[in-house]
């Protein structure tokens, strides 16, 4: 059985090359909670924004991302599936929406209104993704965790601290499991599981040993956490807001409102 694990040969799945990068810029220094609020405000305004603002924001975003060390090329390769889907969105709208025909392809007509509507939707989605990317590149996972805990704390019934802990475990477990998966696959291949034709059999005999291993890793992990006195009531990551954070927040909100108003 041939299997494909995208990512590094060693078996570690890098979820994405677009991830946190060390840096000391202004965006890195910004309080994560403020970044979240700005991100949400801008995302909401993007959903309503017209072509002009979209173009402006998109240029700004791309410039910002390349300044942060994320090249245009790596962005396009990383987002290729999304780009294909967005192209599909554009084409479907352009060919199905009634309106003034630009050209005809057999029985289909490419309408100007449809193309405009499709482009607008695709651009908005792309921009929301790029906004998210900026946050990811400039914010440590620990800060994201702390900010989420801070936002969830006021909600009764939501165990904010536990959710933060599970975020950390999730990030820790992905590389651990991907190595275990690659090893299990090699072992099963050596035992000739791939020669079996029945796909259910192959799937079962890959998944069972892999999950067994990962379960015992999870068991040991929870014992190790207990041994280190795990409790939900623990010291959190420090988040401190400065004057500059408030200033940036104000600018972001004003711009968002401006986009919505025009």
């Amino acid at each position, binding site marked *: 059985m041939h299997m494909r694990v995208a990512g590094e040969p060693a078996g570690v799945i890098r979820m994405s090359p677009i991830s946190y990068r060390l840096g000391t810029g202004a965006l890195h220094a910004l309080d994560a909670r403020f970044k979240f609020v700005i991100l949400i405000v801008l995302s909401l305004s993007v959903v309503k924004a017209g072509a002009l603002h979209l173009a402006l924001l998109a240029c700004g975003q791309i410039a910002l991302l390349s300044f942060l060390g994320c090249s245009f090329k790596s962005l396009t390769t990383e987002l290729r599936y999304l780009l294909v889907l967005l192209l599909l969105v554009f084409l479907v709208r352009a060919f199905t929406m009634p309106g003034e025909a630009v050209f005809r392809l057999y029985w289909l007509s490419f309408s100007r209104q449809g193309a405009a509507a499709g482009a607008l939707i695709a651009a908005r989605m792309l921009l929301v993704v790029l906004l998210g990317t900026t946050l990811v590149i400039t914010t440590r996972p620990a800060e994201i965790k702390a900010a989420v805990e801070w936002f969830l704390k006021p909600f009764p019934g939501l165990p904010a601290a536990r959710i933060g802990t599970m975020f950390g475990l999730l990030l820790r477990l992905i590389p651990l499991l991907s190595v275990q998966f690659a090893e299990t696959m090699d072992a099963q291949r050596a035992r000739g599981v791939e020669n079996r034709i029945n796909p259910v059999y192959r799937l079962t005999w890959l998944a069972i040993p892999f999950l067994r291993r990962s379960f015992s890793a*999870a068991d040991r992990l929870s014992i190790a956490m207990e041994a280190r006195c795990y409790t939900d009531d623990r010291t959190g990551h420090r988040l401190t807001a400065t004057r500059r954070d408030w200033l940036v927040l104000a600018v972001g909100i004003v711009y968002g409102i401006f986009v919505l108003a025009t």
Partner: protein
Amino acid sequence: MTDSHSLRMSVFAALFAALTAMGAFIAVPIGPVPIVLQNLFVMLAGLLLGPRWGLASVGIYLLAGFCGLPVFAGGQAGIGRLIGPTGGYLIGYLPAVYIIGRMTRGSDHRLLREAGAMVLGTLLLYACGVSWLKVVTGLSWTKALAVGMLPFLIGDALKIAAAIPIARSLRPVMQTEVPAADPMRMETAGRTGSTP
């Protein structure tokens, strides 16, 4: 002090969240379309963790991705992935895992019940996924179903068929708290005994 059962379940929920994240990258080429294992892990989360912790595991995965932690495939960080054309499939995991966990909870895990739960869960998943795909792309219902559901059905049937023996074999491991012994001992125990 946190009680160790809930700590253990949290670790297992995080484990299934991590499996779900990885599942988007792991493709097994069976038949014409390689099948991606993500929804297999979601179904197993329902079967093995039950409705509450199953929901927690999918919820943690989605929330982490929503907040920009690198758990979504293809660099589509944050909200963009969820409101994007295929976001509905991710949201659909929530009702799917819940219904699968709910329907199989506490029963003696009969074959039909488990299979039925997974079929229902898969239908809920497509209900969310395909309708959002239709909204975003503007495709007609028939086209949306043809693009967003039909190609995957054979793979889904295989996964449902595989999920039953997998869950059966792992449920004892899940339920009996094995104070982690030596890995070597664990493995021999896994091979010889502990089948239901």
